[in-house]
């Protein structure tokens, strides 16, 4: 059976191979008017047998595909023109403008491609983040849910302004604790047991702009450490990473990367071990993008009474993303303290005076 695609969307001479569907049968289904191998995405044999496509779809689909493909071809022509202009222009501001325009056009050219839509709807975990169109879809999904969720948690739990003044999220930050048997992404604000958090977490920073070798700083702080002297609270630094190079392809900060690059860690991981009757401690994870070409050179930093605002200002750090979990005293906390040689924790009075 011949493909419905007659143009640019089946031509991979200048387009990346990641813009195609990896599963051949699925690809064939999207490139034919009907489903030549049946509904591949359905798993059960009986549901495969029962399934019937809507009537009339096989007739209109090739026309719709070809129409959108021809529109995409026009957009690719425009991209070529911009590339020519880019070669001629020397001025940096017009150059960056042209580049932005080009990225936008690259999104427009592929945004209606059925294969891309399929990948971004059903294969978000394995899509190529170097392609602007995939980043466009990822950003859309994140803005629809993830960004709102993290802002709601940060605000209702008063992490802003208790740590930093405010946040304009630009990246999606995901967090998990791979030292445990069960690996799952932590939802912002979850209360985790002291056992779950006893080894360092791993993070994934998903950038939506083009990013090749940006440097990032990660700080994990606890703003709820009791300060008995002043009858108040202070902030403790639990983990500090600096000059972490991340890109669109690889945004993961995990044990493998840290074993290979021990210079990233400037303050080693200290698990949250709240003392009894000090309530739920908010453990905020802040991800900063460093100023372009500027490295953070911090020697030893005091963990206790850590001033995150001052630190960010001194090192010209811009907060781009955040995550948080909560921790509370439990029956295992003393074991974790022992493991880290922290000594027994204090016991506070149950009632406030």
């Amino acid at each position, binding site marked *: 059976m011949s493909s419905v695609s007659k143009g640019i969307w089946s031509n991979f001479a200048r387009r990346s191979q990641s813009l195609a569907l990896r599963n051949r049968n699925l690809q064939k289904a999207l490139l034919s008017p009907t489903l030549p191998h049946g509904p591949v995405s359905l798993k059960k044999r009986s549901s495969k047998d029962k399934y019937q496509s809507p*009537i009339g779809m096989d007739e*209109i689909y090739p*026309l*719709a595909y070809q129409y959108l493909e021809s529109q995409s071809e026009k957009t690719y022509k425009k991209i070529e023109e911009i590339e020519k202009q880019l070669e001629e222009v020397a001025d940096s501001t017009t150059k960056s403008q042209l580049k932005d325009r080009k990225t936008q056009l690259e999104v427009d050219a592929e945004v209606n491609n059925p294969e891309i839509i399929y990948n971004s709807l059903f294969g978000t975990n394995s899509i190529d983040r170097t392609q602007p169109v995939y980043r466009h879809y990822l950003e859309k999904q994140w803005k629809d849910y993830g960004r709102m969720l993290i802002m709601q948690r940060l605000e209702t739990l008063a992490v802003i302004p208790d740590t930093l003044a405010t946040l304009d999220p630009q990246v999606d930050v995901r967090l998990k604790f791979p030292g445990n048997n069960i690996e799952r992404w932590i939802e912002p604000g979850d209360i985790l047991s002291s056992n779950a958090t006893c080894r360092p977490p791993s993070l994934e920073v998903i950038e939506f702009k083009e990013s090749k070798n940006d440097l990032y700083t990660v700080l994990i702080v606890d703003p709820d450490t009791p300060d008995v002297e002043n009858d108040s609270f202070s902030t403790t630094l639990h983990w500090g990473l600096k000059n972490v190079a991340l890109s669109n392809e690889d945004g993961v900060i995990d044990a493998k990367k840290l074993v290979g690059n021990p210079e990233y860690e400037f303050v080693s991981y200290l698990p949250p071990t709240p003392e009894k009757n000090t309530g739920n401690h908010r453990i905020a994870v802040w991800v900063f993008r460093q100023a372009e070409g500027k490295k953070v050179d911090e020697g030893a930093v005091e963990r206790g009474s850590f001033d995150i605002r001052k630190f960010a200002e001194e090192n010209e750090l811009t907060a781009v993303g955040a995550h948080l979990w909560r921790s509370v005293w439990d029956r295992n906390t003393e074991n974790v303290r022992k493991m880290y040689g922290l000594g027994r924790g204090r016991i506070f009075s149950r009632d406030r005076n």
Partner: protein
Amino acid sequence: MLHLRGLATAASSNGSIPINLIRTSLILSRIPIVTPEVSEFDAKFYNYQEELEKRLMWTFPKWFYFKKGTVAEKEFTKIQKYPIPAHRGVWFPKGVPELKHGRDRRFKQEVTLANKVSEGDSQDLENVSRPITPNSRITEADKTNDETSLERKLPRTLYLLVKQDGKWKFPTFQVKDDQVALNEVAESGLRELGGDKINTWSVSGTPAAVIKYSNGEIVDEGHEGVVREYLMKSHIVAGQFVPEGLEYKWLAKEEVEGVVDPKYYEKVGYLLSN
């Protein structure tokens, strides 16, 4: 400036240029007689939408339209093709049917209506109950491609072109005196050319566009001695255009493009409808 000088010069002419440099041209159109052709894309899209709608439609409430036990109900029931019901212990390879009120809920419902055949010849106009057969959208003129006919290309707008001074163009007339409006000059000129048996409806007295000629060539800017041709729009309502010794054609937009001077088409193309 020009305007002031125009007022000052001649009492007979109120204009800045002599009246013999002003002409008026008539875009006479025949509006479509049948509905436009639906493109392939549209037709298939409408079909797809219709099928989806039918699939999602509620079951036809037969009991509301046909009283139980009546002849009409029996006749209706008889001609329906009911889907296969489910049986216990029987394997249905295409899935178990789910019947409710005689309709398989998984698919669209096909309601067959009694096809009452009318008697007689459809051309027999005396017979009131003759069967209805629609006339063809393609006429004799379409088959012979008679470009002088008004019955050609029924779904399209046709425009009248005449051959004046060896060139195909919209009929153009000289304005002789500025006491008669441009459209009136054009209308009367048309009747002088093609006879009195024509009914037209002039859209407006305001010109739709202007074309400027200098020494017979179309120019963009007005120089000295430029001839101006104002285009007026009008529709033919009834009658016909029968000139003596003058070639004329009724053409659709893309045919106009093929016949007239490209420069001329550039000036008038956007006034014509697809």
